[in-house]
């Protein structure tokens, strides 16, 4: 599997995800600076976490307008897998590759902790490494992770199996206590209709090796390698 990681001014999980991808694939992904419009031919494009453009105005808004994102959108339309993590998820919604928007956390505070998630749909290259309904734990660290979409959009998302991960309590229940940021329908990760694009707020690359104290993010990367090689 060949992968590329897009780097914006203010991205700061670009190195972390590239290390995790290197561990998973055995080779370094291409790092693509936001002003480059020639993106190499790859199987997976990753839009990493961080604070692109400081998250000023709205998280992800300025990055979504970057020249490289036009190319990412075009590739996504032709089926290349695109993974957006945290700020990357925000950028993908701003770029309209995914429906809805990520708003300020309901508690208004930045929140860094490990959360419980349920894998809602294992039928994608991104989630093939998990079983449906599997409970996993991943770290989150964000200020704007409160997923919003209008009622029609939410219905469409649910009808099409577009929810990849949901925030749950440790025993798998969906309720306010398991929802760290107020997301509608407890959405933590979302596919596009074709399940070729995934955006998620949790950071799989921070739970990818024993030293992280948690390896629940590794199946996501390994599953991608398996599916896209």
């Amino acid at each position, binding site marked *: 599997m060949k992968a590329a990681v897009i780097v914006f001014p203010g991205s700061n999980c670009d190195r972390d995800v590239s290390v995790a991808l290197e561990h998973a694939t055995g080779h370094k992904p291409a790092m693509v600076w936001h002003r480059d419009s020639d993106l190499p031919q790859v199987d997976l494009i990753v839009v990493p976490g961080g604070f692109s453009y400081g998250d000023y*105005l*709205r998280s992800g*808004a*300025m990055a979504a*307008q970057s020249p490289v994102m036009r190319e990412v959108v075009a590739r996504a339309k032709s089926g290349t897998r695109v993974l957006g993590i945290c700020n990357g998820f925000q950028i993908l*919604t*701003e770029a309209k590759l995914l*429906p*809805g*928007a990520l*708003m*300020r*956390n*309901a508690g*208004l505070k930045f929140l860094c902790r490990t959360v419980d998630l349920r894998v809602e749909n294992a039928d994608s290259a991104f989630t093939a490494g998990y079983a449906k309904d599997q409970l996993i734990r991943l770290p989150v660290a964000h200020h704007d992770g*409160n997923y*919003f979409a*209008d009622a029609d959009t939410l219905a469409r998302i649910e009808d099409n199996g577009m929810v990849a991960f949901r925030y749950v309590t440790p025993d798998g229940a969906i309720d306010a206590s398991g929802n760290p940021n*107020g997301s509608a329908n407890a959405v933590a990760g979302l596919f596009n209709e074709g399940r070729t694009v995934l955006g998620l707020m949790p950071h799989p690359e921070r739970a990818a090796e024993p030293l992280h104290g948690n390896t629940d993010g590794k199946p996501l990367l390994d599953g991608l390698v398996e599916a896209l090689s």
Partner: protein
Amino acid sequence: MKANVHVTLKRGVLDPQGKAIGHALQSLGFDGVDDVRQGKFIELELAETDQDAARAAVEAMCQKLLANTVIEDYRIDFVG
């Protein structure tokens, strides 16, 4: 020429910041605040002197960047 842009959340979109301000005002003892909404106020200093041209430009800026039309509305006013 100066353009003032107000970016506000669409009706029906939950406003966590507005809600929190409402709560905070209440706990500070300000009663009778029924609803609070928080938006953005962006002031643009433009070289353009023709108002129509300026409006078209600012309209495009709002569509492309300043507002996320999935959740936000915007209003453009010119001053001076």
